[in-house]
């Protein structure tokens, strides 16, 4: 290993520009098929073994035995655990300071919750774009907490990491925005004549019931189990950019995190940052905003005008946001491997806008679930290298 790679093993987070993942990694074929109970091909098993060896996993023969075995509840659970173990090791080997398990235990950020909360019913696939769809649920009754949907995964991750853990947590505003609101609209059917007002009030009631009866109980379970940092994922935060809706988003976030002895941050991407910036300073207890910039940026080296993707960052400062930032320096929708120098320049440009480098964490734009593990690993490794270059430059 070259000498300049030696700092990849560092785990301190009190340094400048700590590096963090945002959430998901792709689920390997052996994880997907294996968890469905399907028999795995030699190639699929080999893929797992190659990664396990590459990441220095000790019990490779145990992995081979599990993947080659017959379907059973135990085998499915073991497959979840193996994919989480490998994902954690991948993130740590890349050198990240803050990790999770690549969300390997979850079906998908929305579906994982909809499947495990009473009152939701998954109705079927609707188009997201082109030939991409998502399984959309309807709220058919008051949402009720019946079982933890993140705790087992968190406990496993906590036991298997050497770095700091941040738990990605699908936010209530997004859950409501992505669901049909049958129950509450029906409840309010006769009481509010104005249809626009009825929809808004129904949405509001859905949100606060969900926060009270599902989201906060789940957060409570996580905090009690030892979670010290939860990232509230709200990709839908600016879907409805009216003042009334943005105030609702803020109110819901504040209510969600209120009173817990835990660090909270919010992740939002591919959104309207002109709108979000106006309200960010009202998010109480939000220690960090993890935002997407690389997707909007050029791939040229340099700071200043080259960094057109960062033009909205200043708005957060202008509107009085004084928390930390997770700066997205890696585009998750392309296989282009950002060189460390590009990561460095993006970081230095962010410093020139924000001023205080101690408020800046280094992130990918979003989860890496659409990239292969190979691409993800290379991107993350360069992100870590680029952060170190930025540290040395300052």
């Amino acid at each position: 290993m070259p000498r300049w790679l030696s700092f990849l093993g560092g785990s301190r987070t009190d340094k400048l520009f700590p590096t963090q993942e945002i959430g998901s990694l792709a689920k390997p074929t052996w994880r997907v098929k294996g968890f469905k109970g399907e028999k795995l091909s030699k190639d699929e098993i080999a893929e797992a073994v190659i990664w396990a060896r590459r990441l220095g996993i000790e019990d490779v023969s145990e992995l081979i035995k599990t993947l080659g075995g017959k379907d059973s509840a135990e085998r499915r659970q073991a497959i979840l655990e193996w994919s989480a173990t490998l994902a954690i090791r991948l993130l740590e080997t890349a050198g990240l300071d803050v990790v999770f398990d690549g969300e390997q235990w979850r079906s998908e950020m929305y579906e994982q919750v909809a499947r495990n909360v009473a009152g939701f019913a998954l109705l079927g696939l609707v188009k997201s774009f082109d030939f991409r769809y998502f399984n959309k649920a309807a709220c058919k009754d008051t949402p009720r907490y019946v079982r933890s949907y993140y705790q087992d995964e968190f406990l496993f991750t906590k036991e298997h990491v050497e770095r700091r853990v941040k738990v990605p947590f699908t936010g209530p505003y997004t859950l409501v925005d992505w669901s049909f609101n049958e129950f509450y609209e029906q409840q309010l059917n006769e009481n509010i004549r104005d249809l626009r007002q009825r929809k808004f009030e129904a949405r509001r009631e859905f949100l606060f019931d969900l926060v009270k009866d599902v989201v906060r109980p789940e957060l409570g379970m996580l905090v009690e189990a030892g979670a010290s940092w939860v990232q509230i994922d709200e990709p839908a935060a600016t879907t409805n950019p009216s003042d009334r809706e943005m105030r609702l988003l803020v109110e819901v976030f504040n209510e969600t995190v209120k009173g817990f002895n835990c660090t909270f941050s919010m992740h939002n991407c591919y959104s309207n940052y002109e709108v979000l910036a106006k309200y960010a300073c009202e998010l109480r207890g939000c220690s960090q905003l993890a935002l997407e910039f690389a997707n909007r940026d050029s791939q040229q080296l340099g700071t200043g005008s080259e960094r057109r993707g960062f033009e909205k960052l200043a708005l957060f400062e202008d509107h009085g946001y004084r928390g930390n930032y997770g700066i997205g320096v890696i585009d998750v929708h392309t296989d282009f491997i950002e060189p460390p120098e590009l990561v460095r320049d993006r970081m230095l440009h962010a410093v020139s806008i924000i001023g205080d480098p101690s408020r800046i964490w280094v992130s990918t734009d979003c989860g890496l679930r659409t990239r292969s593990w190979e691409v993800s690993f290379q991107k993350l490794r360069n992100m870590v290298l680029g952060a170190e270059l930025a540290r040395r430059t300052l």
Partner: protein
Amino acid sequence: MIGCYATGMFPRPERLIAVTRAYDRKAATEKQLEEAFEIAAKEVLAAQSSVGFSHVTDGMLKWQDLLRPFAEHLSGVRPGGLARWFNNNTFYRKPLVTGDLKRGKPIVGVDSHIMPLPRTIAWKTILPAPYTFAQLSENQFCKDKTELMFKYAEALREEIEDLHRQGFEYVQLSDPALVYRPDGLSVSKDELAFVSEALKLAVAGLPVATCLQTFFGDFAAILPEALDFPVDHLGIDIYETDLERLKEYRFDKGVALGLVDSRNSLVEDSHKPAALATEILDAISGKSLNVYVCPNCDLEFLPWNWAKEKMQVVASVAELLRRQSNG
């Protein structure tokens, strides 16, 4: 006259979704995909006929978004980056205007299923309105978005003429951008005058019935100017419109009332939208207008089975209104 129809893209039936996903991961061929589209188009047409729609569309199943055929086939335009489709968890590719916008060849034919359209029911086509096309495009060529709107309107006219020759009798121009105003500011009167001129350029004098369909926003915000738009019918999203304000105006052209909510899976009791329609129609015109009952926006926001139920509600509401109208 009381008719009923759909107002946008249909959701893809489940079997078609499965093939499109397989195609995406290279597990289905182009031919298999094409066959799946043909089968699904017939299913969508059969569903419209069986509930008694007065006009049918091919479902627009191949369209990746409302603007895509124009982004792909107009000269001077190409599909750009993904952007959010108004306030939905759905995305479209921004048309990127980099050259002189012209209709060099047919636009929507490539993505349409004309062959299975029935000869016994009127055909309807749905196209982006000039204002929405200009607003949602990334303009790197025209002087401003107004010039782009007029350039597009010219190309649109040629496309409509062609579609009419193929047998389409009814043209809906979808104009969500005209009413979607999360900042609370309405389109200015000057801008509405340009919109009217662009519509004139696109459809005036053509031998087809025309409707400017608005959705995702308050139709009342473009009144009274919209009453003079050069179209036969005005489409209104009942779930997003200030109905009290709407009822202050008198209409002398037809209306397409978006009475069935495509953005919620809750299936309406048809008597309620029918009662609401009666209340609105009594206020805006009396019973002399041409009226179309429709979903408030594209049914594609629902899974296919729910879309079918909503189509049934649309047809039932129309039937209730017809009975009332006949005394």
